[in-house]
Protein backbone atom coordinates (compact mmCIF):
# COMPACT_ATOMS: atom_id res chain seq x y z
CA UNK A 1 0.00 0.00 0.00
CA UNK A 2 2.66 2.52 0.98
CA UNK A 3 4.55 1.64 -2.20
CA UNK A 4 1.60 2.60 -4.37
CA UNK A 5 1.25 5.86 -2.50
CA UNK A 6 4.94 6.74 -2.56
CA UNK A 7 4.68 9.03 -5.60
CA UNK A 8 1.90 10.87 -3.77
CA UNK A 9 4.06 11.24 -0.65
CA UNK A 10 6.66 12.85 -2.86
CA UNK A 11 4.17 15.17 -4.51
CA UNK A 12 2.58 16.26 -1.25
CA UNK A 13 5.88 16.78 0.58
CA UNK A 14 7.32 18.60 -2.42
CA UNK A 15 4.47 21.10 -2.44
CA UNK A 16 4.79 21.65 1.30
CA UNK A 17 8.56 22.17 1.23
CA UNK A 18 8.39 24.42 -1.83
CA UNK A 19 5.88 26.73 -0.20
CA UNK A 20 7.85 26.57 3.02
CA UNK A 21 11.09 27.53 1.28
CA UNK A 22 9.51 30.47 -0.45
CA UNK A 23 7.97 31.70 2.81
CA UNK A 24 11.13 31.19 4.91
CA UNK A 25 12.81 34.47 3.92
CA UNK A 26 9.72 36.33 5.16
CA UNK A 27 8.77 34.47 8.33
CA UNK A 28 11.92 32.43 9.10
CA UNK A 29 12.67 28.80 8.31
CA UNK A 30 11.69 27.41 11.69
CA UNK A 31 8.75 29.69 12.20
CA UNK A 32 5.33 28.22 12.80
CA UNK A 33 3.85 30.71 10.37
CA UNK A 34 5.90 29.32 7.45
CA UNK A 35 4.99 25.73 8.27
CA UNK A 36 1.32 26.41 8.98
CA UNK A 37 0.95 28.43 5.80
CA UNK A 38 2.61 25.64 3.82
CA UNK A 39 -0.16 23.30 4.93
CA UNK A 40 -2.80 25.91 4.15
CA UNK A 41 -1.15 26.50 0.76
CA UNK A 42 -1.30 22.81 -0.03
CA UNK A 43 -5.04 22.81 0.60
CA UNK A 44 -5.49 25.85 -1.60
CA UNK A 45 -3.53 24.25 -4.46
CA UNK A 46 -5.52 21.02 -4.30
CA UNK A 47 -8.83 22.84 -4.20
CA UNK A 48 -7.88 25.25 -6.99
CA UNK A 49 -6.93 22.28 -9.18
CA UNK A 50 -10.41 20.88 -8.56
CA UNK A 51 -12.17 24.10 -9.59
CA UNK A 52 -12.44 23.21 -13.33
CA UNK A 53 -14.44 20.11 -12.43
CA UNK A 54 -16.64 22.22 -10.27
CA UNK A 55 -17.20 24.80 -13.01
CA UNK A 56 -18.08 22.03 -15.44
CA UNK A 57 -20.73 20.80 -13.06
CA UNK A 58 -22.22 24.25 -12.62
CA UNK A 59 -22.35 24.71 -16.38
CA UNK A 60 -24.33 21.53 -16.85
CA UNK A 61 -26.62 22.62 -14.05
CA UNK A 62 -27.30 25.80 -15.94
CA UNK A 63 -28.00 23.88 -19.12
CA UNK A 64 -30.68 22.13 -17.15
CA UNK A 65 -32.96 25.14 -17.24
CA UNK A 66 -33.76 24.24 -20.84
CA UNK A 67 -34.81 20.75 -19.78
CA UNK A 68 -37.16 21.94 -17.06
CA UNK A 69 -40.39 21.30 -19.00
CA UNK A 70 -39.31 17.70 -19.67
CA UNK A 71 -38.39 17.27 -16.04
CA UNK A 72 -41.75 18.57 -14.86
CA UNK A 73 -43.43 16.13 -17.23
CA UNK A 74 -41.51 13.19 -15.81
CA UNK A 75 -42.23 14.27 -12.27
CA UNK A 76 -45.92 14.43 -13.05
CA UNK A 77 -46.03 11.17 -14.95
CA UNK A 78 -44.30 9.11 -12.27
CA UNK A 79 -45.59 10.97 -9.28
CA UNK A 80 -45.92 7.90 -7.14
CA UNK A 81 -42.80 6.07 -8.22
CA UNK A 82 -39.67 7.87 -7.21
CA UNK A 83 -37.38 5.19 -8.60
CA UNK A 84 -38.97 5.31 -12.02
CA UNK A 85 -38.78 9.06 -11.75
CA UNK A 86 -35.04 9.12 -11.25
CA UNK A 87 -34.52 6.45 -13.91
CA UNK A 88 -36.36 8.55 -16.48
CA UNK A 89 -34.47 11.63 -15.34
CA UNK A 90 -31.13 9.93 -15.95
CA UNK A 91 -32.32 8.85 -19.38
CA UNK A 92 -33.24 12.43 -20.16
CA UNK A 93 -29.81 13.71 -19.09
CA UNK A 94 -28.08 11.14 -21.20
CA UNK A 95 -30.21 11.94 -24.23
CA UNK A 96 -29.31 15.59 -23.95
CA UNK A 97 -25.72 14.88 -23.07
CA UNK A 98 -25.83 17.01 -19.99
CA UNK A 99 -25.64 15.74 -16.47
CA UNK A 100 -25.89 18.11 -13.54
CA UNK A 101 -24.55 15.60 -11.05
CA UNK A 102 -20.99 15.76 -9.86
CA UNK A 103 -20.16 12.05 -10.44
CA UNK A 104 -18.69 9.63 -7.94
CA UNK A 105 -15.11 9.20 -9.04
CA UNK A 106 -13.56 12.54 -7.98
CA UNK A 107 -14.38 11.91 -4.32
CA UNK A 108 -12.71 8.53 -4.44
CA UNK A 109 -9.72 9.97 -6.27
CA UNK A 110 -9.25 12.43 -3.44
CA UNK A 111 -8.98 9.72 -0.82
CA UNK A 112 -5.38 8.62 -1.65
CA UNK A 113 -4.28 12.26 -1.72
CA UNK A 114 -5.78 12.88 1.67
CA UNK A 115 -4.26 9.68 2.98
CA UNK A 116 -0.74 10.54 1.81
CA UNK A 117 -1.06 14.03 3.20
CA UNK A 118 -2.13 12.52 6.46
CA UNK A 119 0.87 10.19 6.45
CA UNK A 120 3.31 13.01 5.72
CA UNK A 121 1.87 15.29 8.41
CA UNK A 122 1.48 12.47 10.87
CA UNK A 123 5.13 11.55 10.31
CA UNK A 124 6.08 15.03 11.43
CA UNK A 125 4.02 14.45 14.55
CA UNK A 126 5.84 11.22 15.51
CA UNK A 127 8.43 11.28 18.26
CA UNK A 128 11.11 11.38 16.87
CA UNK A 129 9.69 12.81 13.61
CA UNK A 130 9.56 10.41 10.65
CA UNK A 131 10.36 11.80 7.23
CA UNK A 132 8.37 11.02 4.08
CA UNK A 133 8.87 11.97 0.44
CA UNK A 134 11.36 14.72 -0.27
CA UNK A 135 11.43 16.10 3.27
CA UNK A 136 14.84 15.77 4.97
CA UNK A 137 15.26 14.82 8.61
CA UNK A 138 16.19 18.44 9.34
CA UNK A 139 12.95 19.56 7.70
CA UNK A 140 10.73 17.32 9.78
CA UNK A 141 12.51 18.25 13.00
CA UNK A 142 12.07 21.93 12.18
CA UNK A 143 8.41 21.37 11.29
CA UNK A 144 7.76 19.35 14.45
CA UNK A 145 9.00 22.23 16.60
CA UNK A 146 7.23 24.95 14.67
CA UNK A 147 4.41 26.51 16.64
CA UNK A 148 0.84 27.28 15.67
CA UNK A 149 -0.49 29.88 18.14
CA UNK A 150 2.02 28.67 20.70
CA UNK A 151 1.38 24.94 20.24
CA UNK A 152 3.86 22.72 18.31
CA UNK A 153 2.15 21.54 15.11
CA UNK A 154 3.24 17.98 15.83
CA UNK A 155 1.37 17.72 19.15
CA UNK A 156 -1.96 15.99 19.65
CA UNK A 157 -4.64 16.63 22.25
CA UNK A 158 -4.18 13.23 23.87
CA UNK A 159 -0.38 13.23 23.71
CA UNK A 160 0.24 16.31 25.79
CA UNK A 161 -0.22 17.91 29.20
CA UNK A 162 0.44 21.42 27.99
CA UNK A 163 -2.62 23.64 28.38
CA UNK A 164 -1.85 25.72 25.28
CA UNK A 165 -1.85 22.60 23.08
CA UNK A 166 -5.13 21.44 24.60
CA UNK A 167 -6.74 24.82 24.00
CA UNK A 168 -5.48 25.08 20.41
CA UNK A 169 -6.58 21.55 19.47
CA UNK A 170 -10.00 22.04 21.03
CA UNK A 171 -10.45 25.31 19.16
CA UNK A 172 -9.42 23.72 15.87
CA UNK A 173 -11.75 20.77 16.39
CA UNK A 174 -14.57 23.16 17.27
CA UNK A 175 -13.85 25.13 14.11
CA UNK A 176 -13.84 21.96 11.98
CA UNK A 177 -17.13 20.84 13.47
CA UNK A 178 -18.71 24.26 13.09
CA UNK A 179 -17.78 24.58 9.40
CA UNK A 180 -19.03 21.07 8.60
CA UNK A 181 -22.22 21.69 10.52
CA UNK A 182 -23.00 24.99 8.78
CA UNK A 183 -22.08 23.59 5.36
CA UNK A 184 -24.47 20.68 5.75
CA UNK A 185 -27.20 22.74 7.31
CA UNK A 186 -27.03 25.29 4.53
CA UNK A 187 -27.26 22.51 1.96
CA UNK A 188 -30.24 20.93 3.72
CA UNK A 189 -32.16 24.17 4.17
CA UNK A 190 -31.44 25.86 0.88
CA UNK A 191 -29.39 23.82 -1.51
CA UNK A 192 -31.40 20.67 -2.14
CA UNK A 193 -34.59 20.29 -4.13
CA UNK A 194 -37.56 20.26 -1.79
CA UNK A 195 -38.53 16.84 -0.66
CA UNK A 196 -42.01 15.50 -0.38
CA UNK A 197 -43.26 13.63 2.63
CA UNK A 198 -42.25 10.26 1.20
CA UNK A 199 -38.69 11.28 1.87
CA UNK A 200 -39.21 11.93 5.53
CA UNK A 201 -36.96 9.13 6.57
CA UNK A 202 -34.10 10.49 4.49
CA UNK A 203 -34.63 13.88 6.06
CA UNK A 204 -34.53 12.31 9.49
CA UNK A 205 -31.25 10.58 8.71
CA UNK A 206 -29.79 13.79 7.40
CA UNK A 207 -30.70 15.49 10.63
CA UNK A 208 -29.08 12.78 12.72
CA UNK A 209 -25.87 12.96 10.71
CA UNK A 210 -25.87 16.72 10.98
CA UNK A 211 -25.25 16.35 14.69
CA UNK A 212 -23.22 13.17 14.46
CA UNK A 213 -20.48 14.48 12.20
CA UNK A 214 -19.16 17.04 14.68
CA UNK A 215 -19.11 14.28 17.29
CA UNK A 216 -17.09 12.03 14.98
CA UNK A 217 -14.66 14.90 14.42
CA UNK A 218 -14.28 15.44 18.13
CA UNK A 219 -13.56 11.76 18.76
CA UNK A 220 -11.06 11.36 15.93
CA UNK A 221 -9.58 14.86 16.21
CA UNK A 222 -8.06 14.31 19.64
CA UNK A 223 -5.69 11.77 18.08
CA UNK A 224 -4.53 13.98 15.22
CA UNK A 225 -1.53 16.30 15.31
CA UNK A 226 -2.26 20.00 14.96
CA UNK A 227 -0.82 19.98 11.40
CA UNK A 228 -3.56 17.60 10.27
CA UNK A 229 -6.17 19.67 12.08
CA UNK A 230 -4.94 22.78 10.24
CA UNK A 231 -5.33 20.95 6.93
CA UNK A 232 -8.79 19.72 7.85
CA UNK A 233 -10.01 23.11 9.07
CA UNK A 234 -8.79 24.87 5.94
CA UNK A 235 -10.37 22.38 3.58
CA UNK A 236 -13.67 22.58 5.48
CA UNK A 237 -13.61 26.34 5.29
CA UNK A 238 -13.01 26.15 1.54
CA UNK A 239 -15.89 23.72 1.07
CA UNK A 240 -18.15 26.03 2.99
CA UNK A 241 -17.14 29.06 0.93
CA UNK A 242 -17.56 27.21 -2.33
CA UNK A 243 -21.01 26.01 -1.39
CA UNK A 244 -22.00 29.45 -0.18
CA UNK A 245 -21.06 30.84 -3.58
CA UNK A 246 -23.01 28.16 -5.45
CA UNK A 247 -26.13 28.53 -3.38
CA UNK A 248 -26.07 32.29 -3.88
CA UNK A 249 -25.20 32.33 -7.57
CA UNK A 250 -25.94 28.95 -9.16
CA UNK A 251 -28.37 27.03 -6.99
CA UNK A 252 -29.72 23.62 -7.97
CA UNK A 253 -33.00 23.99 -9.87
CA UNK A 254 -35.92 23.22 -7.59
CA UNK A 255 -34.17 24.15 -4.37
CA UNK A 256 -35.37 26.98 -2.12
CA UNK A 257 -32.23 28.97 -2.98
CA UNK A 258 -33.07 28.64 -6.68
CA UNK A 259 -36.55 30.01 -6.20
CA UNK A 260 -35.19 32.86 -4.17
CA UNK A 261 -32.73 33.75 -6.92
CA UNK A 262 -35.49 33.59 -9.54
CA UNK A 263 -37.58 35.94 -7.49
CA UNK A 264 -34.69 38.34 -7.07
CA UNK A 265 -33.94 38.38 -10.79
CA UNK A 266 -37.57 38.86 -11.70
CA UNK A 267 -37.79 41.67 -9.22
CA UNK A 268 -34.73 43.34 -10.70
CA UNK A 269 -36.26 43.40 -14.13
CA UNK A 270 -39.43 44.84 -12.74
CA UNK A 271 -41.61 41.95 -13.81
CA UNK A 272 -43.04 39.38 -11.48
CA UNK A 273 -42.52 36.39 -13.65
CA UNK A 274 -43.39 32.84 -12.91
CA UNK A 275 -40.09 30.96 -12.89
CA UNK A 276 -41.59 28.11 -14.90
CA UNK A 277 -42.82 30.28 -17.74
CA UNK A 278 -39.31 31.37 -18.57
CA UNK A 279 -38.48 28.54 -20.91
CA UNK A 280 -41.78 27.78 -22.59
CA UNK A 281 -40.20 27.89 -26.01
CA UNK A 282 -38.53 24.56 -25.44
CA UNK A 283 -41.91 22.86 -25.12
CA UNK A 284 -42.77 23.71 -28.67
CA UNK A 285 -39.53 22.27 -29.82
CA UNK A 286 -38.92 19.08 -27.87
CA UNK A 287 -36.29 17.76 -30.27
CA UNK A 288 -33.53 20.06 -29.09
CA UNK A 289 -30.57 17.83 -28.56
CA UNK A 290 -28.25 18.93 -25.85
CA UNK A 291 -27.97 22.47 -27.01
CA UNK A 292 -27.02 24.65 -24.11
CA UNK A 293 -29.75 27.14 -24.44
CA UNK A 294 -29.34 30.12 -22.22
CA UNK A 295 -32.67 31.33 -20.94
CA UNK A 296 -33.30 34.77 -22.28
CA UNK A 297 -34.27 36.51 -19.13
CA UNK A 298 -31.06 35.62 -17.38
CA UNK A 299 -29.13 38.79 -16.95
CA UNK A 300 -25.42 38.67 -16.78
CA UNK A 301 -24.38 39.75 -13.35
Amino acid at each position, binding site marked *: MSNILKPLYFAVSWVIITIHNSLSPIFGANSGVSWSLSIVGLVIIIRVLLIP*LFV*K*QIKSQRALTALQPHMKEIQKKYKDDR*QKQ*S*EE*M*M*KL*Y*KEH*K*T*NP*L*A*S*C*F*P*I*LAQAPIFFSLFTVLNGIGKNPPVRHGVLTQADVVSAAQAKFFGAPISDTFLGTNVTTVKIVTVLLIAFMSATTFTT*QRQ*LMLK*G*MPKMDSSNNM*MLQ*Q*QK*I*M*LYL*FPLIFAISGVNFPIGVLIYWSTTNLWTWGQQFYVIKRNP*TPGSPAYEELQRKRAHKEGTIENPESGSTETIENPDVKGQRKQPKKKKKK
Partner: protein
Amino acid sequence: MKKFTVAAIHFYQKWISTSFAPRCKYYPSCSSYAATAIENYGFKGVAMSVWRLMRCNPWSHGGVDYVVIKEKVGTIS
Protein backbone atom coordinates in the same frame (compact mmCIF):
# COMPACT_ATOMS: atom_id res chain seq x y z
CA MET B 1 -17.32 -11.46 3.36
CA LYS B 2 -19.86 -10.84 0.62
CA LYS B 3 -22.54 -10.12 3.19
CA PHE B 4 -20.23 -7.79 5.09
CA THR B 5 -19.36 -5.78 1.99
CA VAL B 6 -22.99 -5.44 0.95
CA ALA B 7 -23.93 -4.44 4.51
CA ALA B 8 -21.21 -1.79 4.45
CA ILE B 9 -22.60 -0.42 1.18
CA HIS B 10 -26.09 -0.30 2.66
CA PHE B 11 -24.75 1.48 5.72
CA TYR B 12 -23.09 4.02 3.46
CA GLN B 13 -26.33 4.53 1.53
CA LYS B 14 -28.43 4.94 4.62
CA TRP B 15 -26.22 7.14 6.77
CA ILE B 16 -23.38 8.73 4.88
CA SER B 17 -24.72 9.31 1.38
CA THR B 18 -27.97 10.88 2.59
CA SER B 19 -26.19 13.72 4.33
CA PHE B 20 -24.58 15.01 1.15
CA ALA B 21 -26.01 16.30 -2.09
CA PRO B 22 -26.79 13.49 -4.56
CA ARG B 23 -23.94 13.10 -6.99
CA CYS B 24 -24.17 9.88 -8.99
CA LYS B 25 -24.71 10.26 -12.73
CA TYR B 26 -26.20 6.85 -13.19
CA TYR B 27 -29.36 4.98 -12.39
CA PRO B 28 -29.14 2.85 -10.32
CA SER B 29 -26.50 4.76 -8.38
CA CYS B 30 -22.96 3.44 -8.16
CA SER B 31 -23.56 2.17 -4.65
CA SER B 32 -26.66 0.15 -5.45
CA TYR B 33 -24.98 -1.10 -8.62
CA ALA B 34 -22.09 -2.28 -6.47
CA ALA B 35 -24.40 -3.98 -3.97
CA THR B 36 -26.24 -5.86 -6.74
CA ALA B 37 -23.05 -6.75 -8.58
CA ILE B 38 -21.31 -8.09 -5.49
CA GLU B 39 -24.38 -10.02 -4.38
CA ASN B 40 -24.59 -11.73 -7.76
CA TYR B 41 -21.01 -12.04 -8.87
CA GLY B 42 -18.90 -11.94 -5.71
CA PHE B 43 -15.33 -10.97 -6.43
CA LYS B 44 -16.03 -10.28 -10.07
CA GLY B 45 -18.74 -7.94 -8.85
CA VAL B 46 -16.09 -5.89 -7.06
CA ALA B 47 -14.25 -5.43 -10.34
CA MET B 48 -17.53 -4.48 -12.03
CA SER B 49 -18.20 -1.90 -9.34
CA VAL B 50 -14.73 -0.39 -9.71
CA TRP B 51 -15.26 -0.12 -13.45
CA ARG B 52 -18.64 1.51 -12.91
CA LEU B 53 -17.14 4.00 -10.46
CA MET B 54 -14.49 4.91 -12.99
CA ARG B 55 -17.15 5.50 -15.60
CA CYS B 56 -18.96 7.83 -13.21
CA ASN B 57 -16.51 10.65 -13.92
CA PRO B 58 -16.89 14.33 -14.84
CA TRP B 59 -16.64 13.59 -18.57
CA SER B 60 -19.30 10.90 -18.80
CA HIS B 61 -22.96 11.55 -19.42
CA GLY B 62 -24.28 8.91 -17.07
CA GLY B 63 -27.60 7.32 -17.88
CA VAL B 64 -29.38 4.11 -17.03
CA ASP B 65 -27.05 1.20 -16.44
CA TYR B 66 -28.18 -1.96 -14.64
CA VAL B 67 -26.07 -4.89 -13.56
CA VAL B 68 -26.77 -7.57 -16.14
CA ILE B 69 -27.78 -10.64 -14.18
CA LYS B 70 -27.45 -13.86 -16.18
CA GLU B 71 -30.25 -13.72 -18.74
CA LYS B 72 -32.53 -11.09 -17.31
CA VAL B 73 -31.79 -7.45 -16.78
CA GLY B 74 -31.06 -6.76 -13.15
CA THR B 75 -33.15 -5.13 -10.51
CA ILE B 76 -31.96 -2.57 -8.06
CA SER B 77 -31.71 -3.59 -4.47
